[in-house]
């Protein structure tokens, strides 16, 4: 049989993961060399440049959403994994407790402090600060702290009775001074060149000043100093620059046969708001033979408005009246990313950093492979 190049529809159909009532079909991508006789599918940078697209949906400092269209899941997943586990951030790593008479135990307090996200001058955080390496010789540890690898912080809070409190007051925050210890009570102690990078607006401070660290009663005291270091999410989740970075595939809703009238309204209710719209059947449609709209002029019909908002709950597949009228799927090469930054990086910068990181990883390995051959 002579080779026939695939039609546009066939190419499109290959990209759709079928979603049925109980099963999923066509899960794996097939655009590899030798998969289809007579088709190339070899890696071609120019073809990738032509076909790959990025679409932004939202771009806020703490939340960004965008679509990568036309890339393989392994690539998208690499970016997601790198964003979560390999982009460095600064977090509290060591807590030196001088005095802690609060009810919260030292180790629990230290853990809570470690999880607080901090922000500060971008240049200082990303360029000036470097990794801190624990010296092999433990006795040398005090010679390993420098302005470019350690940020020190202090927390000194003492709870006292408030003499100005109204008689009969029951609210502890009014009755006592410093009954609640918040993240904003943490004090940044710049040393060396840190003044240059982290002063004024750029000072190192908690992203959210209202995080409650501990509660105190009169006579109780917390006095501690902390060291922050750079780290990565694969070591500890506190170093992850994202609250979450995830992707999902673009849902596809294909209405094969007209869904009209009361059914259309029910169909709309099977989806989240805004996914399915209702439109009147036009005269032109009703007069077209074989369209399925004959004699239904003016009735409501269901149309797909915004499949991106769909959660692919498959609710519409449960009802017999829609049987054979709708086909659900997902686009295999359309990844809708959602990146929520914890505040140290801008959300979109995290993604760019992830791409740069993957490139660097590949470059390093390439060097290593050349070394190996030599």
């Amino acid at each position, binding site marked *: 049989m002579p080779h026939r190049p695939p039609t546009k529809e066939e190419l499109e159909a290959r990209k759709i993961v079928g979603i049925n009532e109980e099963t999923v079909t066509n899960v794996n991508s097939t655009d*590899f*060399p*030798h998969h289809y006789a007579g088709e*190339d*599918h*070899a*890696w071609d*940078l120019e073809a*990738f*440049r032509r076909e*790959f*697209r*990025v*679409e*932004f949906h939202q*771009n806020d400092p703490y939340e960004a959403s*965008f679509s*990568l269209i036309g*890339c*393989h899941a*392994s*690539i998208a*997943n*690499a*970016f997601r*994994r*790198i964003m979560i*586990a*390999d982009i460095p951030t600064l977090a509290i790593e060591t807590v030196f407790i001088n005095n802690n008479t609060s009810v919260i135990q030292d180790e629990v307090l230290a853990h809570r402090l470690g999880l607080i996200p901090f922000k500060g001058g971008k240049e200082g955080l990303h360029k000036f600060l*470097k*990794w801190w*390496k*624990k*010296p*092999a010789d433990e006795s040398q540890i005090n*010679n*390993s702290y*420098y302005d*470019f690898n350690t940020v020190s912080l202090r927390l000194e809070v003492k709870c006292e009775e408030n003499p100005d409190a109204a008689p009969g007051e029951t609210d502890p925050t009014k009755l006592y001074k410093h009954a609640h210890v918040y993240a904003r009570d943490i004090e940044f102690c710049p040393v060396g060149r840190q003044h240059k990078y982290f002063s004024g607006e750029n000072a190192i401070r908690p992203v959210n000043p209202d995080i409650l660290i501990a509660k105190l009663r009169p006579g109780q005291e917390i006095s501690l100093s902390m060291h922050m270091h750079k780290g990565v999410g694969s070591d500890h989740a506190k170093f992850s620059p994202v609250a979450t970075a995830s992707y999902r595939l673009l849902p596809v809703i294909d209405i094969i046969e007209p869904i009209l009238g009361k059914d259309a309204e029910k169909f709309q209710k099977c989806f989240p708001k805004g996914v399915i719209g209702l439109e009147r059947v036009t005269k032109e449609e009703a007069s077209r033979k074989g369209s399925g709209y004959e004699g239904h002029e003016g009735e409501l019909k269901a149309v797909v408005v915004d499949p991106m908002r769909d959660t692919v709950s498959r609710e519409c597949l449960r009802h017999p009246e829609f049987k054979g009228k709708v086909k659900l799927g997902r686009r295999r090469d359309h990844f809708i990313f959602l990146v929520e930054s914890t505040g140290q990086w801008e959300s*979109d910068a995290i*993604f*760019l950093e992830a*791409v*740069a990181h*993957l*490139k660097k*990883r*590949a*470059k*390093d*390995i*390439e*060097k*290593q*492979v*050349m*070394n*190996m*051959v030599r």
Partner: protein
Amino acid sequence: MGPKSKSKKEEPVEPGSDVVMEDEPTSAQPESRDDMSVDQNEDEDIDDFEEEEEEEEVQRVRLLPGSTPTAASFEFLNEGHTLGNALSYIINRNPDVEFCAYAIPHPSENKMNVRIQTFEGSGTTAIQALEKGLRDLQDLCDVVTDKFIEAREKFMATKGSSSS
């Protein structure tokens, strides 16, 4: 450490002595290289710590025994699914490659193996296919960066004009 003591017990051969290629288990590293991460390999002078940009790299990739020019397995230290999956995808897009897959032999060992087989008549060796894959991956990253910045600029421009 658990894995260390175990590997000692199973190793009748003196570490460092030569082993027949076929006899060596696929995923064994010489003792000296074991458990060594890139971060803690040397004691450098603290004073020029900052100036020193690139530190002396340990060899993280090696060819596993039993490899022929067109069919080879590679072992990567300190790599995981992130690079493994992306790399095996891009190598599979090379028409000269007959087979490429990656595996993480054990989750508690920081190792990733990649197997590459190329077609005998293609003139491409497994190492060449690996190098091409790594280069392609870098090119891909450049395109993604460009497109991402482009899309962001476009989005911010339309957003700025519509909100004002």
